[in-house]
């Protein structure tokens, strides 16, 4: 592997994301560990979006749908498990679950299914239509969750105890961080592998020149739909973890502000960069923590910063630190 400035920076970031909470753990600062866990989980959501956005060029403003579906998968399964009310009794008895691996599986399956349906409809269009339609479908699920009183409606759903992972104590902040961090690293490795795979190259080609991809006998629609489903599944997994971090899920996770924020994580770091979401999320959490302490209206500064990055520094944080992207990423 070539050691460019960008890959050095990537290693530094992923190391920093590990060192900071471990240092906080040894200094007994659980709050900082929680912040790092939040950063890792949100970065995971960004890694998911980046597969559609960076690699596929699909500007989805509806990824909160998958994030929220992951969250509700955790909320619904865990709520049934803690209340001893079976989720369904036919065709077999299912009592809900407080086991993370099963919850993750359900979250991934349902967000992938949702991405399949939303993607199949939205990818019939392109450009601005695609942006607005993904936004509208996300909003549809948001209103559905609000009106769905069985699972808390507008108030959301609280879980008393964090779900369990075999062999670990998930209530210990550093152990839960370890789970989120390992999953983030796996997702990054998967995304890197995907980008170099024949599928990833074809997808990137479909973004750059649709006609040529069609001319060599590939179907851009199928490529994009596959990318959209993978992207939605990863973001859904992040949603399940995020809900577990807060032990709470509410329609806010599905709102379009969440979609915008996940997109901001990707952009602050640098769109199309593999580690962009990690850099972007770290910067976002840092800003939220530092500026949020100074002013309740810190999002004004976030807005100004985002505006400046879009207008004048299109490479984001990684672009500023590691220089321009190579022509063929």
């Amino acid at each position, binding site marked *: 592997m070539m050691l460019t400035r960008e890959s050095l920076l990537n290693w530094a970031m992923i190391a920093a994301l590990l060192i900071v909470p471990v240092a906080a753990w040894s200094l007994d600062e659980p709050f900082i560990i929680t912040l790092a866990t939040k950063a890792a989980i949100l970065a995971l959501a960004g890694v998911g979006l980046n597969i559609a956005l960076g690699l596929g060029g699909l500007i989805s*403003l509806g990824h909160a749908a998958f994030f929220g579906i992951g969250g509700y998968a955790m909320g619904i399964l865990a709520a049934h498990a803690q209340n001893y009310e079976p989720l369904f009794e036919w065709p077999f008895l299912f009592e809900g679950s407080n086991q993370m691996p099963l919850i993750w599986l359900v979250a991934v399956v349902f967000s992938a299914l949702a991405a399949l349906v939303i993607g199949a409809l939205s990818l019939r269009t392109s450009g601005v*239509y695609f942006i607005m339609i993904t936004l509208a479908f996300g*909003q549809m699920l948001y*209103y559905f969750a*609000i009106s*769905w009183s069985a699972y808390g409606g507008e108030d959301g759903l609280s879980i008393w105890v964090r779900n369990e992972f075999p062999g670990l104590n998930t209530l210990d902040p550093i152990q839960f961080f370890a789970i989120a961090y390992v999953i983030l690293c796996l997702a990054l490795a998967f995304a890197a592998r995907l980008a170099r795979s024949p599928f990833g190259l074809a997808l990137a080609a479909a973004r750059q020149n649709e006609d040529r991809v069609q001319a060599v006998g590939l179907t851009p629609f199928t490529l994009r739909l596959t990318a959209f489903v993978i992207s939605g599944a990863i973001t859904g997994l992040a949603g399940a973890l995020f809900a577990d971090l807060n032990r709470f899920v509410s329609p806010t996770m599905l709102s379009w502000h969440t979609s*915008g924020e996940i997109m901001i994580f990707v952009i602050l770091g640098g769109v199309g960069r593999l580690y962009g979401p990690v850099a972007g999320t770290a910067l976002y959490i840092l800003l939220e923590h530092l500026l949020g302490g100074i002013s309740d209206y810190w999002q*004004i500064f976030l807005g100004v910063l*985002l505006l400046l990055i*879009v207008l004048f520094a299109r490479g984001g944080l990684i672009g500023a630190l590691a220089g321009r992207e190579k022509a063929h990423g």
Partner: protein
Amino acid sequence: MTYILVLEQILNGLQLGMMLFLMAAGLTLVFGVMGLINLAHGSLYMVGAFAAAAVAGWTGSFLLALTASLAAAAAAGALMELVVIRRLYRRDHLDQVLATFALILIFSEGTRWLFGSFPLFLDVPSYLSGPVSLPGGIQYPLYRLTIILIGLAVAAGLFLLIARTRIGIQIRAGEADREMIAALGVDISKLYTVVFALGAALAGLAGALVGAIQSVQVGMGEPVLILAFVVIVIGGIGSIKGALAGALLVGMTDTLGSVFLPQLFAVFMDPASAASAGASLASMLIYILMAAILLVRPSGLYGGSA
């Protein structure tokens, strides 16, 4: 269920449709002429509502408040265009989405900072309050009827403006071929600012009119913005006629669905679950409508090739 109730709900649907048209017209004009997707259109709606509430609070005059909403939203729109938006015309849609999302953050938090988090109230003036009798024995709130009439008047004015005036010709020419009309000596950047300010003024007017029925608060523009997106996706992006058709369709579907679906479900379900199932389905109805229309016509009812 009487026919009066049905007629009343149709009027309510018409009223929502007219408000959505005021929002969607600006969005679709800006997209049609400048090729720009503007998420911050909802912020202009909010600016109009806050300006109206503030001026009504100082002067007590509803007409002055409406004038202020038009002026404030147009000014905010022109400023937005001059400072930020005009740098985005040549950019891709991702940059436009992000920059206008950033503008939402700035406008929302800025308004919260100026006016606080508590909602403001804008009262319906006495000469527009109370019910009015319509032919057929329907009692309908005069204010809502006024909104419908204002909406119809604006729609008619907009069609005349686009079809009959010099600026309308320039707008249509700008949609068709912007290089050509620039070459013919039209100051295209001034035209863009004017179109943007016009769309902003319509959004501000909608915000002020709705602000008197609902409360005036930060974030009020966003649900309307998303409905307006659904409207122009259904109608076809860039088409004013499509915006009107889509707005009426969405207004009717949303209003009638939320009233009648629970009643329809009650025919074959027990009342409590009919109410909740009906409400859930009603909340998704316009999106289902949108998906259905896209399956048949991917570029909307009146859209060209997307």
